[in-house]
């Protein structure tokens, strides 16, 4: 853009009360385009929601605005100032852009006042020492101006998550932020705390501060927003004005219009074979309540729901990682108390959600990664037999087409897809009856994804039951034979037969459908 054009754009922004103006933002991370010519704008004193499925490009857009990552092209104007391609976190803070992070960024062990005034502590007039009394009274003034229930001298560690979030918001206000970005702020709040947060957000709006709100919870988006921008696959799909905002419409836009084309794939199938796992009214404190279902031989049972709905917690408990508080489980016709080593001996396999953290040991070879869960198989005279271990690794490499096919390569050097194949592979060489997979295809390429699905199909055909947890709706619907949707730790809906669309699942996850569960 030429200087004159840029100048006129800048003036236009100021005149129209625009706070932030992004035009034609494009971003790709070494290859795939994550954001493709996206326009996004915010007015002063506006609550603007940004919605989209996982991978739609929401977080990338936020990262670009806050300077965590740089865009490839496009213009960004904030409060009349053009922001260059080389942007940084510190620069965005100085401009007045603040982010309330999901993992809070407060300093533990310090008081509310110390956190609010970090690096800006008021000092005595004559000496370079911090004037604690003045700092506390300034902080208290700020707290009271917004009517929060906090004391300046409270230690952060003693506050609830909701209170900590208000401290973060105060910190943003104290640094004169004019745009506050909130990314899933209610995910760990109680309902009262959420209600308090919403009144704070409206208060911010009245003060002329722009709030960029990101949430999967449609009812919140509906209640709060002045406008909604919908992203899908890196494109801006729509900007909805206040009167156009309706939860069902937003979901329809998030998923796209080509529903018919995909629908044909998603026929649920009944499975009348014997029951492998019979879960009866299991509960775990703070995680999930009263979960019951039966899993049949060869069945792929999908578990859907939003992040934090208890999906992962249920499968972790069934595998025996976390304890159950009540309820019972019957496995292969016998009462079953889940515990990890017993699960492995009895034919369970488990592919955890965070591959790098929980799935692989990056510095160790393919052989080592596979051997460690199969020590009972690779044993000879009570010691690990290198030969047997290597045999096993070769078998897994052959079964799943792991590349490179050299069993001594450290797993950390493999691509994401091949790493995941190792994690799956170590179970396939066992006598497997039930495989639990949690987000099995996050961060892996399309080819590996397809192979993964084929593997699941093969296992299912061979009579292995699969519990599949996934946020990827096409995946969940595409390969599951039956789907349970969890919401707030309970089964809210079961899709057992007929056609299922992404919209159905998303609506159930958001609580927009009356569940036939309790």
């Amino acid at each position: 853009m030429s200087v004159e054009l840029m100048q006129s754009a800048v003036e236009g922004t100021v005149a129209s009360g625009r706070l932030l103006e992004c035009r034609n933002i494009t971003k790709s991370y070494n290859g795939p385009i994550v954001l493709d010519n996206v326009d996004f704008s915010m007015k002063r004193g506006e609550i603007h929601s940004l919605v989209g499925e996982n991978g739609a490009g929401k977080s990338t857009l936020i990262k670009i605005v806050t300077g965590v990552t740089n865009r490839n092209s496009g213009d960004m104007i904030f409060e009349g100032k053009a922001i260059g391609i080389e942007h940084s976190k510190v620069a965005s803070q100085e401009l007045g852009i603040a982010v309330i992070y999901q993992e809070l960024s407060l300093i533990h062990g310090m008081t509310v006042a110390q956190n609010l005034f970090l690096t800006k502590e008021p000092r005595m007039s004559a000496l370079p020492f911090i004037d604690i009394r003045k700092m506390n009274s300034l902080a208290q003034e700020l707290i009271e101006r917004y009517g929060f229930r906090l004391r300046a001298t409270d230690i952060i560690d003693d506050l609830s998550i909701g209170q900590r979030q208000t401290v973060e918001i105060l910190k943003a206000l104290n640094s004169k932020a004019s745009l506050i970005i909130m990314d899933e702020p209610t995910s760990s709040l109680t309902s009262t705390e959420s209600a308090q947060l919403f009144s704070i957000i409206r208060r911010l709006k009245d003060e002329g501060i722009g709030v960029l709100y990101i949430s999967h919870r449609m009812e919140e988006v509906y209640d709060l927003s002045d406008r909604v921008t919908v992203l899908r696959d890196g494109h801006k799909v729509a900007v909805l004005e206040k009167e156009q905002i309706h939860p069902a419409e937003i979901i329809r836009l998030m998923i796209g219009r080509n529903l018919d084309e995909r629908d044909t794939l998603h026929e649920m199938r009944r499975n009348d074979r014997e029951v492998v796992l019979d879960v009866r009214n299991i509960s775990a404190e703070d995680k999930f309540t009263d979960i019951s279902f039966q899993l049949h031989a060869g069945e792929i049972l999908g578990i859907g729901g939003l992040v934090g709905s208890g999906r992962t917690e249920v499968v972790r408990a069934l595998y025996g990682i976390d304890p159950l508080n009540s309820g019972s489980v019957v496995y292969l016709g016998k009462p079953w108390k889940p515990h990890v080593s017993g699960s492995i001996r009895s034919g369970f396999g488990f592919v955890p959600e965070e591959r790098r953290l929980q799935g692989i040991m990056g510095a160790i070879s393919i052989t080592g990664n596979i051997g460690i869960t199969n020590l009972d198989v690779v044993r000879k005279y009570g010691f690990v037999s290198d030969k047997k271990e290597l045999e096993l690794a070769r078998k897994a490499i052959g079964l799943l087409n792991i590349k490179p096919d050299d069993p001594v390569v450290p797993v950390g050097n493999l691509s994401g897809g091949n790493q995941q194949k190792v994690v799956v592979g170590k179970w396939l060489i066992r006598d497997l009856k039930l495989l639990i997979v949690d987000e099995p295809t996050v961060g892996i390429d399309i080819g590996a994804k397809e192979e993964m699905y084929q593997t699941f199909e093969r296992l299912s055909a061979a009579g292995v039951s699969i519990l599949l947890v996934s946020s990827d709706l096409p995946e969940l619907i595409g390969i599951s034979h039956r789907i349970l949707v969890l919401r707030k730790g309970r089964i809210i809906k079961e899709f057992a037969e007929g056609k299922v669309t992404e919209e159905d699942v998303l609506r159930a996850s958001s609580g927009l459908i009356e569940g036939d569960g309790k």
Partner: protein
Amino acid sequence: MPIATLRRLILIGLFLVIGAVLAIVSPTFLKLDNLMTLLQEASQTGIVAIGFTLVLITAGIDMSIGAVIAVTAMVCVNFLSYTHIPAWIFIPLSLGTGCLVGLFNGYFITRFKLPEFIVTLASRGILAGVALLIAVKDADGFISNVYIQDPVYLGFGGTVGPVYIVTIAFVVLAFITQFFLKRTRVGTNIYATGANPTAARLSGINTKHSIYFVYMFSGFCASLAAIFLSARMMTAMPEFGIGSEMDVIAAVVIGGTPFTGGVGDIWGTVIGTLFLALIKNGILKLGISPYIQPIAIGGIIVVVVVIDVWYKAFAEKLAKKAGNRRKRSDEAEVAVAS
């Protein structure tokens, strides 16, 4: 009452009980001489422990402190033996030794992002060797004992009334450091660096500066302790201070500064230092074998840390329960409202 305060009161209570028992059992314990010696020994460890506390607050560790003591002592005797520079000039210069070591540690920790333990352990090795290398030797190349006769230097080992100067220095240093930590921006930045380095950087704190500062200060404190130690001993040996990390770490840990960073203060370390000195003195007064000392200190560290961890888990459980209660009442409220 905050956990830290409660913990401190318990420690002081325990200190008084042990003191009272010793006063009854040992007739010489309450003698002024013994008490002053106890304080003198506590101060010797305490000065180093103050510097070490700052390092721990940034979630680091400094293994080089003992060797800094040795090298500083050797630097001093070199000045004494080979120059005519008066003590009031070379002593402040020698204090720079520790600062230099701290600068070295800080550089490798911040520039190459190396683990603090490895960097300072390497410094410890290097410095222990340097101390032997630069020690004053006789004609046959054997390390000779230099007797310190300089009155200014010896003055550091002396007393004001019954109180050793090192004790006065310890108290003054403790006050200044505590004030510095709590009432200056640099002090606040040190806490922030240890508690949450990412958040600290986002708030505009130069965490590298904080790290440089604490290692240099830790080195300075160790050098200061070296002057007092050699002055009282009236000589200096290249083994001075080697292995003293044990006592320093024990004092700080007993004082309640955790290894996880972001928490702790000088008062805790002062109490920990006194507690440790009392235990050592008590073992002596009760006529128990002095070889028991390190065993007792090691044992106390384990007990204290176990109690700390146990208590922390207990406190978190309590907090969680309180949270759940609130959550449930919240949900009930909502249910009633709808």
